[in-house]
């Protein structure tokens, strides 16, 4: 009860005090002194994936299993395929996953303070035409019903709570990520014009009657007027349209980095526009721009996908070879827990692994490599447990927090969806290791693997200190995860002017593919639909052979 408006003032004043005293404080805590560990896609198997695959083909398998369908890879795509098959009544399915837990890029961790994501962390509310996705969300409890107009009612605990985003710019935390504080009118006008243009593109329909920009992206119009945008960089597109404002371009570059891990100059204009114009979510109880999020990020969705099917999953299992047999396929895998090889004979296989792994698994049977292979930006993600977050003036902590002019794409507060407050929290810091050429990217990847935990910590804290003076003093734990092949990047020409879709064509009636690499844009929806598509193809084939 009673007047209580002090916390705002307190936060501001404390921030001022912290900024003022920062230089007097003793030097940063040394990186070695902060407990935590370095994680990453399975370490034991890591060198197998990065280096040549082990030649275990000739070791006799200790066990042989059989299944109607074997799914390799338990990321979103693999789990979605498994769920779809289960719903269609196909229960003789076996999923192999390299990690201890399924989820792939949507993995999560947990400590005594909060659960936290290691990769994917949100899903924008979908277009209501995405029926399959809505059904899944309803089953997951994220949609609780529909209103009379047919708009979904979202579970308020899953919708991102307010305040959602803030940007540290010119010494102040402002609300929202589009720069406002200290931005000249000329720039504001351009920003306004840009968003007006996006609104037009969101509604735009091609000559074939399809949306210019749709999710899944293969539902987008083939109209050359739009698809040709893929041959141009987003930066060039903007220049052509007179969008020169450094603030606007900073923001859009940030968006490209955040969603694709590449810069404005590298991103295909089609992809850059799709990021905005492809979002057509509608809800009965939230604005179209709302997103769903959980402390553990999209691991929530991965777990839901997993729980919505009952077929067995073998984790800690590295598939290392696949061959076609007379009756279908034979997969060899390494049971990492027991250190032995197992064989799986199946009628069909779904390879839900990243394309560069898939190619290795297939060996000679692999479809011709894309002439312009998709770049995979390495990412480093850090989860920091802090007992306080001293900050400068302005908006208090939000879900997504970005610092203007830094290399990272900011951090999210994993505690944000908690219903009670505590000074201890986990923040998840994201940084794409962007390179301009593919050589630079492999260089960045090598560097990423070579960088020590202490070096990462020093780098990350230095960046956070700019907006959170003396935060180093408040860090209790830092865990680091390096994603060597974070996600496929839709560089110029990658989406509509490559053999992207050709690569995912099934081989015969026995090998199917599902992964966001075949979409070129790495988001939950694409993984979800690519899993469904592969399952549907198997079902269709099964029906035709049964007839």
């Amino acid at each position, binding site marked *: *009860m009673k*007047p*209580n408006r002090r916390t705002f003032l307190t936060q501001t004043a404390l921030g001022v005090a912290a900024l003022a005293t920062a230089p007097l404080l003793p030097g940063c805590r040394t990186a070695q002194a902060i407990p935590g560990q370095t994680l990453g896609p399975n370490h034991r198997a890591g060198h197998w994936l990065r280096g040549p695959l082990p030649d275990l083909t000739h070791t006799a398998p200790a066990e042989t299993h059989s299944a109607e369908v074997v799914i390799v890879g338990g990321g979103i795509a693999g789990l979605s395929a498994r769920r779809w098959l289960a719903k269609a009544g196909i229960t003789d399915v076996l999923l192999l996953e390299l990690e201890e837990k399924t989820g792939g890029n949507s993995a999560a961790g947990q400590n005594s303070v909060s659960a936290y994501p290691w990769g994917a962390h949100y899903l924008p509310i979908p277009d209501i035409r995405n029926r399959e996705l809505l059904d899944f969300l309803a089953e997951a409890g994220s949609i609780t019903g529909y209103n009379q107009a047919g708009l979904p009612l979202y579970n*308020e605990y899953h919708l991102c*709570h307010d305040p*959602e985003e803030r940007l540290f710019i010119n010494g102040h935390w402002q609300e929202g990520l589009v720069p406002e504080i200290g931005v000249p009118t000329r720039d504001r006008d351009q920003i306004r014009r840009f968003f007006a243009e996006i609104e037009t593109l969101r509604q735009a329909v091609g000559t074939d009657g399809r949306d210019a920009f749709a999710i899944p992206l293969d539902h987008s119009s083939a109209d050359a007027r739009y698809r040709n945008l893929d041959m141009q960089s987003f930066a060039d597109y903007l220049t052509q349209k007179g969008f020169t404002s450094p603030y606007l371009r900073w923001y859009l570059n940030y968006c490209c980095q955040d969603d694709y891990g590449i810069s404005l100059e590298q991103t295909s204009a089609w992809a850059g526009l799709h990021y905005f114009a492809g979002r057509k979510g509608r809800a009965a109880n939230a604005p179209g721009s709302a997103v769903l999020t959980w402390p553990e990020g999209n691991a929530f969705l991965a777990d839901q996908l997993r729980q919505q099917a009952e077929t067995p999953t073998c984790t800690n299992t590295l598939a290392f070879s696949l061959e076609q047999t007379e009756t279908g396929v034979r997969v060899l895998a390494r049971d990492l827990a027991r250190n032995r090889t197992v064989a799986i004979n199946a009628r069909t296989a779904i390879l839900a692994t990243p394309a560069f792994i898939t190619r290795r698994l297939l060996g000679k049977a692999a479809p011709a490599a894309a002439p312009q292979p998709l770049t995979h930006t390495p990412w480093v993600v850090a989860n920091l447990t802090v007992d306080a977050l001293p900050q400068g003036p302005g908006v208090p902590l939000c879900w997504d927090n970005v610092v203007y002019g830094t290399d990272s794409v900011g951090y999210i507060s994993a505690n944000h969806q908690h219903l009670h407050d505590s000074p201890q929290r986990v923040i998840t810091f994201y940084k794409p290791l962007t390179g301009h050429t593919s050589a630079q990217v492999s260089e960045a990847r090598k560097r990423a693997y070579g960088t020590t935990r202490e070096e990462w910590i020093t780098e990350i804290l230095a960046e956070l200190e700019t907006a959170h003076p003396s935060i180093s003093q408040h860090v209790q734990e830092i865990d680091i995860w390096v994603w060597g092949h974070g996600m496929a990047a839709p560089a110029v020409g990658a989406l509509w002017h490559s053999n992207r879709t050709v690569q995912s064509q099934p081989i015969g009636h026995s090998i199917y593919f599902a992964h966001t690499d075949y979409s070129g844009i790495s988001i939950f929806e694409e993984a979800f639909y690519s899993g469904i598509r592969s399952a549907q193809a198997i079902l269709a084939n099964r029906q035709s052979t049964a007839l």
Partner: protein
Amino acid sequence: MADEPTDPLAASKTHRPEGESLNSFQILLLLSVFVIATCGLIYELIAGTLASYLLGDSVTQFSTIIGAYLFAMGIGSWLSKYLDGDLLRWFIRIEILVGIVGGFSAPLLFVLFEYVASFRVVLYGLVGLTGILVGLEIPLLMRILEHQLSFKDLVSRVFTVDYIGALLASVIFPLVLVPQLGLIRTALFFGLLNVLVAAFVLYKFPQTRPYRTAQGMLIGFTILGLLAGFALAERVMTYTESVALQDKVIYSQSTPYQRIVLTSNAREMRLYLNGNLQFSSADEYRYHEALVHPAMQANPRARRVLVLGGGDGLAVRELLKYPALRTIRLVDLDPGMTQLFRQNELLLKLNKRSLLSPKVDVVNADAYTWIRQDTARYDVVVVDFPDPSNYSIGKLYSTAFYRELDRVLAPGGVVVVQSTSPYVARRAFWCIAHTLQAVGLRTFPYHVHVPSFGEWGYVLASRTTERTGWPSPNRLNLPAGLRYVSPLTLRDMTTFAPDMAEVPTEVNRLNNQALVQYFEDEWSAVP
């Protein structure tokens, strides 16, 4: 270097006749002693005053602070013999340090009071440090002046000036400094004086030339820092417990969740949580009667009640006036709070030992997390949370939370929500009503006048599908002895004057936190 002052001490090094009249330079040095002495006593007074303001029990605080301070000065004096070599340099350093430590002592203590659990350690640490530094000053100065005056004159003059300085300090402190400058600025101002003494010595003595630039810069920075502190003093005060300082503090405790301070004067007792007034014993009955009785009258067959927040047991005291109630479950985050209201004699008198009643079941948990797991059903739910001044409290006023309330409501049940001031925060008040409506509840907004808060609002709510509503005047069965709620006041509570009348607002949801925005806008407009 012609304009360099010649060493004023050198001339008189050889002969020092007794009773010699002082040269202007020596007068200036003695003036420094005077300033130093005044500063020293001021720091002691500040620490004592601050301790008794913040911790209460001024006799104990003052005497332990003075004791500790004098003892520390003793340590300083003893330590002074270990300082050898360039005494002037030592003196300058110590003056700068005293300026920093003493000058920032008050702002630092005010700020830390709210944020550290072991405030006493910080307080006595700072007092000790200041004492030691101040204890070093006079012995050092005397050694610097040693060759200037005969021992007799030296002792007599230095101590005369010292004691006059002390007298001045003790007179101007209560009469001029505290009323005019406040504690924080007083400390900063005297810190500045110490640093100016250092500057004076640095520039008057040619021996200091080798380190003049370095020390000069340090002095410059310190002065800047102190001046910045001076400018920010107002800011520091606005968020410290300045409010609580008018009265005597009779109890204070920092729990992991909040700082609880109880003050009293001849007329009333006041409870502050993190510096915000929770109640005044003089008129809290108005607030709590109005919170509880309309809801209890609306559902006269109530047996089970849930109270969220309200760890002071005052709402429970009102509830216990209904003997038919079987259980009252109180959920309050802070065990420190409920413990205090079960143990402190004065508070037990105020809440009539309500929390000790066998009917009462106290749960210390976060209300939101707790209610999501609760499976019981209640006839009346009393929601007495702090005002929605930040986003985490704002969640407790959201549609999502009200849906949880609706879920735990037994058939015919009612909810009552304390809803801030409809006069000061009109949109915030109506936003709460609209949010309750948005989850399908029928609302009955009402308000009362509580002198120590002003006009205060509540919203009673029941299910749209049920007949329960605002108590009808002819079916009232109020307990005896109420001082505010009566059939007549009950009737008046629901009329809103035009300046508080309903306004359209958004509904408060977790994903828009509209209420916090309204609340912040409206309360920040209050001077």
